[in-house]
């Protein structure tokens, strides 16, 4: 039976729930636009979740104002994935979240007042550390015991899913809620601008004219269960988490290697772990950030692994923006949707192949195909490369 996915939840610029995200993906409707809620940044476009912190707190029933947007978004998606499941004294349950910015959205409010010496509210800092964002989600859901947070930049979300699957296979946990969450912040917007990889126009993954990413925000969560847990909960598996791998590029702190070494290792090992042939991958949900460097390196890695028989692939980042640590989890939810509904999502804004590699992504919604296995890639700063293989539950 392996490790099963029995629940999914997502919030992103294209919707507050799985259904809303699926509709937008089907209709080719992006969530990237001018910022409305986060004020005072230099970003002309971003993938903002269409709700204020107050609206999120009210909808989620969170009383305190000392809560980061990262926690609120995470809780929104985690609640949806958790669904009607009950706490149990018998089923050992854990939670693993991934975040890159943690409570930076609150910390930067504090620090601005601190620098101006205008009554900084130190309590805002109680939500700064990344671990506290997960502790808050766990507390709201009543999960205690194994509570953990991973932070490997943009590959974090996939790593949370991978760690959850390993904990179930090793018999440490019976079920585990895994995912990732990151909120937009002035800090990250300025950071990617300082690297000159923030596109002021709408991002164009895998297009020759691509000029950088648009940041986004959101969260994705998946409920993973092993055999023992499913026997007790009676939950119906949607998909299996079949393959995973994590490899270091060891090339540069931020840039990906031109030969796609780390990415190639991650993809190869994940497919090998899944025990399926290369030709059985029906769709690749690419990392595809829209930066010159990533999309080139990832294309080379896909060619290294698949040769000239690359499966249909697309990046969904022109819908959501790059949601950093949440990306791997949000895109795992999209991959589950691809399998569940036999869909291949379009890569928006693609016109011309990258000159060096010539790869052509899927540009239209495909509905007439059977999607049995999806490869999802997430690559990050620090040379952290991770890939995931999800397969249809048989």
């Amino acid at each position, binding site marked *: 039976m392996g490790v099963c996915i029995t629940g999914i939840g997502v919030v992103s610029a294209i919707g507050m729930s799985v259904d809303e995200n699926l509709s937008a993906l089907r209709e080719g409707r992006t969530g990237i636009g001018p910022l409305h809620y986060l004020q005072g940044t230099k970003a002309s476009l971003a993938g903002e979740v269409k709700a204020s912190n107050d609206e999120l707190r009210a909808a989620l029933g969170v009383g305190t104002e000392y809560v980061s947007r990262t926690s609120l978004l995470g809780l929104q998606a985690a609640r949806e994935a958790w669904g009607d499941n009950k706490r149990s004294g018998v089923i050992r349950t854990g939670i693993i979240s991934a975040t*890159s910015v943690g409570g930076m959205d609150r910390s930067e409010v504090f620090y601005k007042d601190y*620098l101006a010496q205008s009554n900084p509210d130190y309590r805002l800092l109680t939500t700064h550390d990344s671990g506290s964002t997960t502790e808050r989600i766990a507390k709201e859901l009543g999960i205690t015991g194994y509570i*953990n947070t991973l932070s*490997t930049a943009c590959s974090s979300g996939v790593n949370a899913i991978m*760690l959850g699957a390993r904990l179930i296979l090793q*018999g440490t946990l019976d079920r585990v809620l895994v995912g990732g969450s990151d909120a937009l912040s002035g800090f990250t917007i300025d*950071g990617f601008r300082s690297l000159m990889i923030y596109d002021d126009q709408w991002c164009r993954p895998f297009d020759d004219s691509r000029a950088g990413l648009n940041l986004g925000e959101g969260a994705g969560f998946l409920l993973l269960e092993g055999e023992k847990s499913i026997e007790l909960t009676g939950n119906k598996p949607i998909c299996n988490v079949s393959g995973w791998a994590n490899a270091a590029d060891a090339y540069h*702190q931020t840039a990906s290697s031109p030969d796609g070494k780390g990415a190639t290792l991650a993809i190869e090992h994940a497919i090998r772990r899944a025990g399926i042939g290369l030709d059985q991958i029906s769709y690749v949900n690419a990392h595809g950030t829209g930066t010159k460097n990533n999309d080139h390196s990832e294309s080379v890695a896909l060619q290294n692994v698949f040769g000239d028989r690359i499966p249909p692939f697309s990046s969904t980042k022109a819908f959501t923006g790059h949601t950093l640590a949440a990306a791997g989890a949000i895109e795992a939810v999209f991959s589950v949707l691809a399998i569940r509904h036999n869909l291949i999502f379009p890569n928006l804004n693609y016109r011309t192949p990258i000159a060096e590699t010539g790869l052509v992504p899927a540009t239209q919604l495909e509905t007439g195909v059977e999607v049995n296995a999806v490869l999802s890639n997430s690559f990050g700063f620090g*040379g*952290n490369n991770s890939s995931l293989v999800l397969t249809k539950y048989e």
Partner: protein
Amino acid sequence: MNKPALYLSAASTISHQPTFRNPGFSAALAPVEASSALISPDYKAYIDAGLLRRMSKILRMSVACARDCIEQAGTGQPDAIVVGTGLGCLQDTEKFLNTSLTVEGLLPPTSFIQSTHNTMAGQISLSLGNHGYNMTHTQNTLSFEHALLDAAMLLREGDRNVLVGAADEHIDILEDIVAQLAFEASAPLTSAASFFVLSVENQGDAKAVLADVYTVGGTKYGQEDIDAFLDRNGLQAGDIDLALYAGTPVQGAALNVDYLSLAGVYPTGSAFALHYAMDLLGTNSEVRNVLICNGLRKSNLGLTLLKAVEA
């Protein structure tokens, strides 16, 4: 599930104490003083001078300890690199936050690049040319225990040697924050990094056996959780020759030592305690079982059980 014994074959710590490349340091360690400073080795012996200039304290400590540890273990390239950090790269985070709020126009990106929590693990992989599994855990006061759990899992999955460690750095604003939030630290706030090589085999000079690691978060815990953990490992509190604790002493242990008084206070101080315990096990044959009981935060409990290597 039956857990095979795992061996700690090397350790390296840079801290406010004379821990670095100083076997036997545990014998004569005095409590850390408020006036103490980080005891830095000659970093140029471990890190290229060009890189060193751009590196914050936490990066220097981490890369130097990692390299020293790999050299000591003599096991070559590790199969994986796993790091725990409670607060990550504070120095670069504050620096970029400051720049982004005060500087108009184009900002220098270095401090942003080096602000992410995975910078230590990434820099270590770069320094070693390592393409293996690379992971960063950040769960508050349990970050190191989670890294150790992950490393132990990797060895059970087939890896032979894993580099596992923890690091946290002190910046000045922490003193102000601690005072404002009325957090009562029992010892001075400090910086430190500790790295270890955890192996499936004893290459002949293993310093200690890692018998078990356990974490529980988000709940009140008590002596019964500790007793249950020991029971799962076939022990009782009376079998513990030394308990290194943060928070509350372990009832029934032969000797209790507050490791925060030695390490100072930082989120991953239990990694200092692990090195201290290994050093003690290597020099004092009376000590057979050591329990590290990390209750630095009241809602988080981390337990690490070490045993002497059987001759």
